[in-house]
């Protein structure tokens, strides 16, 4: 085609190109608008509307079913009749209406007039006052006339208004006579159908329609959309954003639409109501309302991201779920996200960062279980863990070990604790997957034998103060069951129901016969602190014959299989090789060998023993001579584990077998610590030293919950649970209670009481300590814990004499006292009470008390000091010294079932609502209770029973 002059292109072609480009441009613009508009979470919300409708329909149906249809119909009929009635009196009604309109018009006009007069009056008053005070008497007089004129008019008008209003009232009343019946009927109907009507309104508001469509259209949807991002801004718990703490923005509700709405419990995720809505989280009245704590404070994750399922970093709870998500959502491990969501089983880990300095947390069962297990297995011995710094070493002291067990026992035990006792809490270091090679095993055996040698040689002299005499094993077994040993220890082969108790505080006693020295055992049973001063094992004040019975029983528990295992000795060649390696760490081999040559055989054994104790960190759990208590524990600190980047966790060669998340790593680690050495060419001295505890899966989950919670997150003060002075004391007391395992026998405010599993009738077991701080006097409590004396003579289990320090007793008492600050009934201060001089009788009161005492037959159970029958309740003579008046008055006598629902104490006054004995003291429960207390106080002793001999 020929080009025009001055033109390089043909104009028509150019226009065509322009047209094509314009169309493409339009298409790409529409595309990008749609791409921006269509977001996965919107689909979730639209589906949510259907779910809501479904649930509302169900609720409406339910509301319909629960209303009485016949009644509604009859009410409707009545309303219709009433309406007809009004219609039939049409003329009269319309006349009244006219009258009403007339008078209302008058009122309106009068109101206007009054308003004008009133304001004029005020105006002239101001003018008058102004003129008067500025010395213009003439003007003032003029204004005064006007002011008075308007005031009179205003007052007249107001009176007139009152007349009209009266009239209006009258007409209204007249009107009511016609409509009253209908109105009241309608109100009644509304009561019946109100719920349903509300539900219907709610349904209407969420239905899709034209308005809904317009509100959610692209470009218009910035105004007032119904499909929108819902978010909570959480100021209390912040996120670290590069040197700045910013509030968390939780947009989870965008998809979890009904997380805070009850009624959706049965729906599938994400439409489910929060499972602990009312008590724990999200709900407005729960402990952690969503407005203050949001979601990610506990669940973690990239909570501000809502684009699609993957963006907030959901974490699957199980392998099956992971596979499902991979298919459904293309889920994969988030490698770049510091803190993805916790799998559901670990959510309680988040409690730790805000609730610090407390032993156990209400409602956090998994976490509490984990904390308990950390105590049981003594993880804190080797690893520094926040909150466990001040605990006693988890293992027994080995400073006098030679008196207790033989060298052969130590060798075999350390080599494989489980060969002696499959429930051993002592973990297994040897013959694991990574060190069972013959070369390694032989070196290990030499190390173990050297350690045994070291421990025995270093052991202090200890002479048992009692000699073992054979007793009655059956009686011994009976004693172990009844006095309370099993509150801490377990033994195989106990009788029903005692074998139901599963406490793990103390040693598993099966096999004791193959373990300890008989003389040591009797001395230990008689007085544990004689062998180890700081032991937590208490004295049960056993008599000599009891001691020999128990010892006979325990010594009869032999482990034949273990006895058959051969012990082994130090291999001198291997020993010297290992020692040379140690000595050559900082010196040349020749010098190391020269040093070794100078050492005697015994010195060499001791040196290797000591080095091995240091190598395996035995000193972290046991007190061992030659190792200072200040020596750093062997394991790495666990604080901050929950924030550790994955790249800092050693996967060895297990990248393909162990999942890429902190919790999966931790699980694999606790399940089999030697796993990381698999396939890694390590030399003997570099082998992984974390021993195997043979933990069960659910134990690992619980322990992991605690460890994953040890994060480095900064939590603002407002978000932390700050303990006040009292709560701090309480937390300290709880630590003492768990150190000495009070929880093994007593159920303290609903927690603990392992031994109670063996009791059908709790009255015969260790008492529940409910509201104990309110119940007993602090000074009595102090003396009791120092020197135990009898209270419930009918209970066979003994309250042992613990080796408490003064400080520990005080902490315990403060703990119990502080626990009951929240009990509304506790009016008195928890102080040391003087109980003397309480009794001042009112006229006739004493006789009434005596009458009640007889009629209520108190002495049939509280026999102590009254008759010789067997007691079923504490001796009341000692109540005065022990119990608080306010507790007896406001709690115990008022309603014993509220404190101990198992108690045989009758509920005489039924929460202070009825009279226990009719015709006494005006049948006033309060007066009756007061009189009873006075009576108790009158005959009560000013002392406690003689304490047991220690």
């Amino acid at each position, binding site marked *: 085609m020929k080009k025009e002059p*001055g*033109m390089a292109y043909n104009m028509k072609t*150019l226009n065509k190109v322009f047209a094509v*480009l314009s169309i493409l*441009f339009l298409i*790409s613009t529409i*595309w990008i608008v749609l791409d921006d508009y269509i977001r996965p979470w919107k689909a979730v919300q639209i589906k949510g509307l259907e779910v809501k409708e479904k649930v509302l329909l169900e609720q409406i149906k339910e509301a319909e079913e629960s209303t009485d249809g016949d009644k509604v119909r009859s009410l409707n009929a009545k309303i219709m009749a009433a309406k007809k009635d009004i219609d039939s009196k049409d003329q009269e009604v319309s006349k009244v209406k006219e009258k009403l309109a007339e008078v209302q018009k008058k009122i309106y006009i009068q109101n206007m007039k009054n308003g004008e007069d009133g304001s004029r009056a005020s105006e002239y008053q101001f003018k008058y006052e102004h003129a008067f005070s500025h010395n213009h008497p003439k003007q003032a007089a003029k204004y005064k006339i006007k002011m008075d004129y308007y005031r009179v008019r205003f007052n007249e008008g107001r009176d007139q208004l009152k007349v009209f209003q009266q009239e209006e009232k009258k007409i209204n009343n007249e009107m009511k006579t016609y409509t009253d019946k209908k109105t009241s009927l309608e109100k009644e109907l509304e009561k019946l159908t109100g719920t349903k009507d509300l539900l219907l309104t709610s349904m209407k508001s969420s239905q899709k329609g034209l308005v809904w469509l317009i509100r959610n259209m692209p470009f218009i949807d910035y105004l007032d959309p119904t499909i929108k991002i819902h978010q909570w801004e959480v100021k209390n718990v912040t996120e670290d*954003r*590069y040197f700045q703490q910013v509030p968390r923005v939780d947009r989870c509700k965008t998809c979890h639409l009904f997380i805070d709405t009850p009624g959706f419990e049965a729906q599938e995720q994400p439409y489910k109501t929060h499972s602990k809505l009312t008590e724990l989280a999200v709900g407005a009245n729960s402990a952690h309302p969503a407005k203050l704590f949001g979601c990610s404070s506990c669940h973690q994750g990239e909570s501000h991201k809502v684009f699609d399922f993957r963006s907030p970093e959901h974490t699957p709870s199980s392998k099956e779920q992971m596979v499902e998500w991979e298919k459904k959502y293309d889920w994969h491990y988030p490698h770049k996200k510091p803190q993805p969501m916790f799998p559901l089983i670990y959510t309680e880990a988040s409690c730790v960062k805000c609730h610090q300095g407390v032993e156990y947390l209400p409602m956090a069962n998994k976490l509490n279980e984990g904390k308990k297990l950390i105590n049981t297995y003594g993880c804190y011995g080797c690893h520094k863990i926040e909150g466990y710094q001040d605990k006693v070493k988890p293992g027994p002291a080995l400073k006098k070990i030679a008196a207790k067990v033989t060298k052969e026992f130590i060798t075999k035990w350390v080599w494989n604790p489980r060969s002696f006792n499959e429930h051993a809490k002592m973990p297994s270091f040897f013959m694991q997957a990574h060190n069972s090679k013959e070369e390694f095993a032989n070196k290990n055996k030499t190390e173990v034998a050297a350690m045994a040698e070291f421990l025995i040689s270093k052991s202090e002299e200890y002479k048992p103060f009692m000699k073992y005499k054979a007793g009655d094993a059956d009686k011994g077994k009976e004693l172990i069951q009844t006095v309370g040993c099993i509150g801490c220890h377990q033994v195989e082969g106990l009788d029903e129901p005692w074998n139901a108790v599963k406490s793990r505080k103390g040693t598993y006693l099966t096999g004791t016969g193959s373990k300890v020295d008989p003389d040591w055992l009797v001395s230990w049973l008689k007085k544990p602190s004689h062998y180890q001063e700081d032991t937590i094992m208490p004295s049960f004040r056993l008599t000599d014959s009891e001691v020999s019975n128990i010892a006979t029983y325990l010594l009869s528990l032999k482990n034949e299989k273990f006895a058959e295992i051969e012990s082994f000795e130090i291999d001198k060649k291997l020993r010297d090789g290992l020692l040379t390696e140690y000595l050559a760490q900082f010196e040349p081999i020749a010098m190391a060998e020269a040093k070794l040559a100078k050492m005697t055989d015994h010195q060499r054994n001791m040196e290797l023993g000591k080095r091995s104790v240091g190598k395996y960190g035995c000193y972290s759990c046991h007190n061992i001579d030659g190792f200072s208590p200040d020596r750093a524990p062997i394991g790495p600190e666990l604080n901050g584990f929950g924030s550790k980047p994955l790249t800092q966790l050693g996967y060895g060669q297990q990248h393909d077998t162990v999942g890429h998340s902190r919790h999966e790593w931790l699980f694999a680690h606790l399940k089999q610590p030697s796993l990381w050495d698999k396939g890694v060419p390590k030399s003997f001295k570099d082998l992984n030293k974390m021993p195997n505890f043979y933990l069960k899966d659910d134990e690992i989950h619980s322990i992991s919950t605690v460890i994953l919670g040890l994060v480095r997150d900064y939590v603002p003060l407002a978000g932390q649970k700050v303990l006040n002075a009292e709560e701090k004391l309480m937390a300290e007391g709880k630590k003492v209670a768990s150190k000495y395992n009070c929880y093994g026998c007593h159920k303290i405010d609903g927690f603990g009481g392992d031994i109670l599993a063996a009791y059908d009738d709790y009255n015969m077991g260790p008492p529940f300590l409910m509201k104990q701080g309110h119940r007993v006097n602090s000074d009595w409590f102090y003396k009791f814990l120092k020197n135990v004396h009898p209270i419930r003579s009918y209970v066979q289990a003994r309250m042992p004499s613990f080796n408490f320090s003064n400080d520990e007793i005080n902490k315990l008492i403060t703990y119990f006292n502080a626990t009951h600050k929240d009990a509304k009934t506790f009016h008195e201060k928890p102080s040391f009470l003087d109980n003397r001089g309480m009794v001042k009788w009112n006229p006739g009161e004493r006789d009434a008390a005596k009458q009640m005492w007889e009629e209520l037959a108190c002495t049939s159970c509280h026999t102590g000091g009254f008759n010789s029958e067997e007691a079923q309740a504490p001796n009341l003579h000692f109540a005065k010294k022990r119990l608080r008046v306010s507790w007896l008055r406001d709690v115990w006598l008022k309603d014993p079932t509220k404190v101990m629902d198992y108690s045989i104490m009758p509920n005489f006054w039924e929460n202070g609502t009825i009279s226990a004995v009719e015709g006494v003291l005006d049948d006033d429960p309060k007066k009756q209770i007061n009189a009873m207390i006075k009576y108790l106080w009158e005959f009560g002793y000013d002392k406690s029973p003689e304490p047991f001999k220690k």
Partner: protein
Amino acid sequence: MKNIIDMIMAPEYSFTAVVVLFILMIKYVDKIATKKFGYSLLLGMTVFIGWLFTDNVFRLNFFATNDNVPIIFLVFLVVWSCWFSLYKGIQNDNRIAAGGVPLEAEPENREKVWSWPNLVYTELFAIIACTIFLIVWAIVFKSPLEEPANPTWAPNPAKAPWYFLGLQEMLVYFDPWLAGVLLPGLIIVGLVAIPYMDVNPKGNGYYTFRERKFAITTFLFGWLVLWVFLIIIGTFLRGPNWVYYGPFEVWDAHKVLAANNVNISEYFWIKLLNQGLPKNILVREIAGIIMTVGYFVVGIPLFNKFFGNKYLKRMGMIRYYLMVMLIFMTLTLPIKMYLRWSINLKYIIFMPEFEFNI
């Protein structure tokens, strides 16, 4: 096959290969500047890159960050524009050699047209087309936005934007002062200075190669070999810890390479003379200092011998020596790279006392 590619793509081999290819390109420019070669090059590249994408590992690494996508555009565009300019240049060179004028100087190509619509309208097309392209690109490849920066969670590898990856690659071989400040500064200064140093009037308004052979070769060496290729290395061949990974190699952050780098001073005093390092800094670094000074003192006269006669007169003293300095500085990069690869050289002069390390 893939293993062999993983091996030969290591910088020391692939860089050498690229240098060789570059020399071949200049030498056989006549063969290259043909349509036949152009089409086969396009075909070859498309097939090769397409083949790369059939590999799972390569695809995974490639799409891990969407800003790798422009590198593919870059490769095609650079190759095309390079080939196109050579093609046009050689065409004109042949015409001139045959006694004609460049194509652009033909009368029909000198005819003037209206700026509307010929220029303005087509510019509008370009604007719209670019916008469409950018929109579609933005939709199809979402921007690789990550979490807000967190100093305790640095990504590994921490890569600069793709256009700076050549600079980042230089950091492997040079002290940050040189690779991060001096050399980039010289690049900018050098680019700014080119118009003032280039006094060759030929080639104005038309494509040519032979009339500006020195200028084009020097520039293309810097651009293709020392810049574009280093970007490709930085993008595709560097993984966690900035270690070399073949295109088909999985990025395992734990990959270990033995890299014990040694200074010239250590080579000289310890390995050669078998004695300790002298206390005096200057004495200690004497070998490196002599080498560096020698590089310029011996190198420049040598350079003059080859190119001096022709260019010194034409450009004048100042322009000429400025150019020589720039070229010598540029050449330090490949020299240092080869020294690193061949003898594990760390620094030629190592004076941490003055933060002066070359």
